[in-house]
């Protein structure tokens, strides 16, 4: 049986959004969400690029870590929420943890792929000019992998936002996810759609921010004018 009365018209969604913004519920929760997102995504980028670099460069590291990376990439992230509860207690740690787990593995896989795609002749060229291993990693492999790494960051950002909302809905303590759950359990569909609308806008802004960084860093790939 279809209960169409639960599908609110767009005007009431917008009105609900205004109400939520004016009452201050959005601001506080959005702030809580974005802080967790920034910390979790920041950690995922720094450690993910590092791990991908090592896996892409050293066969032994790849062999050792690849099964785990693949397993985590496929595993549903919410499975880890109870474990994160146990590790960090209910709070920021769980939220940051779930954002991290959502973004980390796709960044690893993309960076690794990017490193392995760097042409062997670039590596040989750098070695012929006396590059040491460290210079090879930082001056040749990492920049060469950049387009793939940045694609990983974009994918990772999308997953991070999704992970964050799901995680917050799970713990239902703070953040946009918690707000979503509160109004969801009240069957206040106008508020639910209003929050969803705001989440989508935030996700788009985050995604564009990453895309902007990507464009700046990979300008050399653009077709000649």
């Amino acid at each position, binding site marked *: 049986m279809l209960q169409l009365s639960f599908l609110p018209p767009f005007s009431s969604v917008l009105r609900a959004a205004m109400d939520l913004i004016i009452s201050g519920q959005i601001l506080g929760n959005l702030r809580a969400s974005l802080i967790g997102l920034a910390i979790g995504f920041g950690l995922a980028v720094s450690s993910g690029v590092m791990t991908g670099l090592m896996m892409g460069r050293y066969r032994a590291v790849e062999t050792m870590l690849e099964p785990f990376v693949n397993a985590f990439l496929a595993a549903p992230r919410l499975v880890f929420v109870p474990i994160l509860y146990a590790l960090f207690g209910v709070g920021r740690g769980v939220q940051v943890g779930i954002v991290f787990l959502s973004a980390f593995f796709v960044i690893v896989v993309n960076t690794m792929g990017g490193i392995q795609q760097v042409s062997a002749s670039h590596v040989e060229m750098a070695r012929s000019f006396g590059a040491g291993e460290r210079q090879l990693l930082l*001056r040749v492999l990492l920049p*060469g992998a950049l387009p793939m790494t940045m694609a990983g960051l974009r994918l990772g950002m999308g997953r991070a936002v999704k992970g964050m909302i799901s995680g917050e809905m799970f713990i239902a303590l703070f953040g946009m996810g918690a707000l979503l759950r509160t109004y969801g359990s009240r069957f206040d569909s106008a508020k639910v759609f209003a929050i969803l609308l705001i989440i989508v806008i935030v996700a788009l802004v985050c995604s564009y921010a990453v895309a902007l960084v990507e464009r700046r860093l990979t300008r050399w790939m653009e077709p000649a004018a």
Partner: protein
Amino acid sequence: MGRQRGGPVIELRNCSKRYPSQLGQAAVDALEGVDLTIRPEEFVCLLGPSGCGKTTLLKAIAGLVSLDEGEVYIDGDLVTGPGPDRAMVFQDFALLPWADVVTNVAFGLELRGVPKATREKKAFELVQAVGLAGFDHHFPRQLSGGMQQRVGLARALAVDPQILLMDEPFGALDALTRRLLQEDLLTLLDRRRKTVVFVTHSMDEAVRLGDRVVLMTPRPGQVRDIVEVGLPRPRPPDLEKHPRFAELLEYLWQQLREMRP
């Protein structure tokens, strides 16, 4: 690294290299017992059909390939890896696509820790010298093949090596561009005294450029003959009219034809 008057001597002693069989391909004897001495400031061309080990030989001098047997000495010092006395120019240019012309030319200096201002000044000079003035901030993909190899050449010259190792540098270029780059290379080298080892499979190129042509046979890669070119330097523009030029081409062609499997 001691520098003798007139540049270094390169000695290859009994060099052998075998690439083990893989993926259903038979093992390849890239080099077998190669002895060769390259004189100071000489321009030596390694000529032979593909698969004759000439690139392996060049990379052994560069210190990029480890030999199964034999040694390479430069001025009596055993080559164990790449060194600042050598710089290489690659067939596929191997320019960094994310770096502009100046940054590419300065790359060798950057790896050596030369400060940015100093290395860019040097790179700027070389960009001019190889005829790319005004293209300092172009990216490789915005340049033609010939221009890209000019960048490759400038990058090698920027580190001021005593030995220039060139691996079929003009092989990927059209005939016209190739001739222009050959001429410009000789002009550049007139003012910079260097030992050059130049791999090519073009007889014409070997004779135009080299002081000596080392003819190599494939599988196993061995030295078949060493030919003194004996054409005047600087090479005249109408080199093809020189009787010696035709004579050398004829001789090299005979030799290469006999190698045909």
